[in-house]
């Protein structure tokens, strides 16, 4: 029953939110996430007897746990304010979509379709805030890109299926290319991340949820697909080129983040750089680099949801939506301030964070196959560090403002920060599960 329950539990939470508005949204969020984590930790691993094709394997549990945690911090921030609490139902349906991707990741077609459906569901939350947050143009751009991603993955699945049936020549290369493009768009890897910066700037809460959930969906697709795919393990020269190209794109992303003046857009470029490294490592040495890629994407999902949620909360505290007030955050709201610091350090891959572990493991697995990947990561981390210092250093500024009252989102943000630090110090149990 576990595979069905992990899907229907968030759906039930969403229905509850719609039908019983008096029920505090935060309670629904906490209940759903806690139950989801409990199912992931203690549920069985059998295939679903009722619904064809559903199963939950150990790696899928890790992915789902990450998705639930990332959703927790964003949804707790939304629940904190009556004007944004309507987005909780959409977020819970999105979490159910990711659960569907995780439980169907053995089939690229099913997982890709479920991922695209999840992306479309999440767009609903963005559409709701057009005018007061996200612009119409940004949402439209997002819809176009996620449909391109979904179509790419579906065609990739079609070509792979065709090859497995008939060994038709000349379909593996398009299948591989479309897979890389589709996955790259969903994880916002440069240069496929054109839809993300404006969203992070205009609607950081929506962007945080989208980056986290779609990143987890791609983790599930990679975990379920890469080992068996006929098109991702051939041609060493092509793999090397993809790896090098990904490394260069990551450096470019870090440069763009350094040049940005708006914090949300800088976070978007850092997310893109991290995604580039994970896909570059995977492309260069697909067998050994799968677990580091999954780890890096998971750390990215948590860090992005954390930092964008904090930007959303401090932005709403400002005089106008989008006016971010980070000055003295660690003194005004210590939990929130230190949490965003940890999240940003993880995004750029600083030591003692989960992001660093992912990058280190990627270099160990793929560094021999791609010349300059290690140096590229170092350069990108330095550039990213300078970017966050320039844009977010003000969190440590002395502030005359009194300490703000404690909110639940401070606690959930601190929880994610602790997870990122624990993941950076003692990652081996989770890595063993992913393997």
């Amino acid at each position, binding site marked *: 029953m576990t595979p069905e329950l992990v899907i229907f539990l968030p759906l039930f939470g969403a229905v509850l939110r719609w039908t019983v508005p008096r029920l505090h949204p935060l309670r629904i969020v906490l209940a759903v996430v806690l139950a989801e984590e409990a199912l992931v930790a203690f549920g069985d691993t059998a295939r679903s007897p009722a*619904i*064809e*094709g*559903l199963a939950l394997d150990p790696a899928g549990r890790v992915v789902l746990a990450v998705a639930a945690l990332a959703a927790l911090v964003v949804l707790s921030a939304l629940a904190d304010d009556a004007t944004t609490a309507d987005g909780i139902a959409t977020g819970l349906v999105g979490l159910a979509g990711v659960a569907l991707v995780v439980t*169907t990741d053995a*089939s690229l*077609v*099913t997982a890709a*379709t*479920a991922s*695209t*459906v999840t992306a*479309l*569901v999440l*767009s*609903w939350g963005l*559409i709701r805030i*057009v*005018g007061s947050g996200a612009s*119409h*143009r940004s*949402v*439209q751009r997002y*819809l*176009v890109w996620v*449909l*391109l991603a*979904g*179509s790419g993955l*579906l*065609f990739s*699945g*079609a*070509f792979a*299926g*065709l090859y497995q*049936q*008939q060994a*038709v020549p*000349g*379909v593996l290369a398009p299948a591989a290319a479309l897979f890389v493009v589709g996955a790259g768009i969903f994880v916002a890897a440069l240069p496929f991340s054109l839809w993300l910066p404006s969203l992070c700037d205009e609607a950081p809460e929506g962007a945080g949820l989208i980056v986290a959930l779609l990143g987890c969906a791609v983790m599930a697709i990679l975990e379920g697909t890469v080992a068996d795919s006929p098109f991702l393990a051939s041609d060493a020269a092509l793999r090397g080129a993809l790896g090098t190209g990904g490394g260069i794109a990551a450096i470019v992303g870090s440069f763009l983040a350094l040049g940005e003046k708006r914090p949300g857009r800088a976070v978007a470029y850092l997310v893109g750089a991290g995604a580039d490294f994970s896909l570059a490592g995977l492309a260069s040495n697909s067998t050994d680099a799968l677990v580091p890629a999954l780890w890096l994407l998971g750390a990215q999902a948590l860090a992005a949801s954390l930092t964008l949620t904090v930007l959303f909360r401090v932005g709403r505290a400002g005089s106008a939506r989008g006016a971010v007030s980070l000055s003295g955050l660690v003194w005004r709201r210590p939990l929130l301030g230190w949490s965003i610091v940890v999240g940003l350090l993880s995004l750029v891959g600083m030591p003692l964070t989960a992001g660093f572990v992912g990058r280190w493991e990627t270099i160990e697995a793929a560094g021999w196959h791609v010349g300059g990947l290690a140096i590229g990561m170092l350069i990108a981390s330095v550039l990213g560090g300078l970017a966050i210092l320039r844009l977010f250093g003000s969190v440590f500024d002395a502030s005359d403002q009194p300490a703000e009252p404690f909110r639940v989102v401070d606690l959930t943000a601190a929880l994610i920060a602790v997870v990122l630090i624990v993941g950076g110090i003692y990652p081996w149990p989770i890595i063993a599960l992913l393997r």
Partner: protein
Amino acid sequence: MILVADALVVTGVVLVGLLDGWKGAPVALGSQYLGLALVLLTPLGIIPSLVEIVIAAGVIGVLVTSSTAPSPSIALSPRIWLSGAFRARWFDLSVTAVAIVGALAVANERPVFGSDVDPIVDVLLFTGLLNCLVGRSPRIAGGLLLLASAGAVALQAVDQLSTRTDWFLLAVLQILLALALVRLRSIEGPRAPDRSGSAAVEGDGAT
């Protein structure tokens, strides 16, 4: 029958390229879906064709019942659909024609699926991408739906929809996409400048 089906699909994608507002979207996409249902009937059988008809009904139903007018109503009169729905911009028409010819050439040179669906998939893919990249909102919406149709037909052609979950998700994807697009349209409508008197009455607006 294949020729008729192909002609319907080509007519549909040409009309998507000529959309002047949202009014003509149901007609353009309806033609395309009807053609797809006929295309799928011959090589793949009645069930894929019926599924395509159900999806078409869902998408067209969403488009027809959506309205930016204060009193939403179902516009069933063909005069409402066709009057001012399309504008023959020769540049757009020529670019669409180039895309269609190119798609047919690719399908002829390198058939992938080995059946009658190759030309249709390529036409939908090429014109869908074209409309997504260069069109205004109605054309972008049409282009996205064409892309989704292309993916669905390709998967059915290689028999990759092996479970009921796959069929269901594919149908949900296309209908959800239509819902998202019309919802976005309803927000765009009041803000965008309208281009003509009829467009203002219908609530359409070009971005």
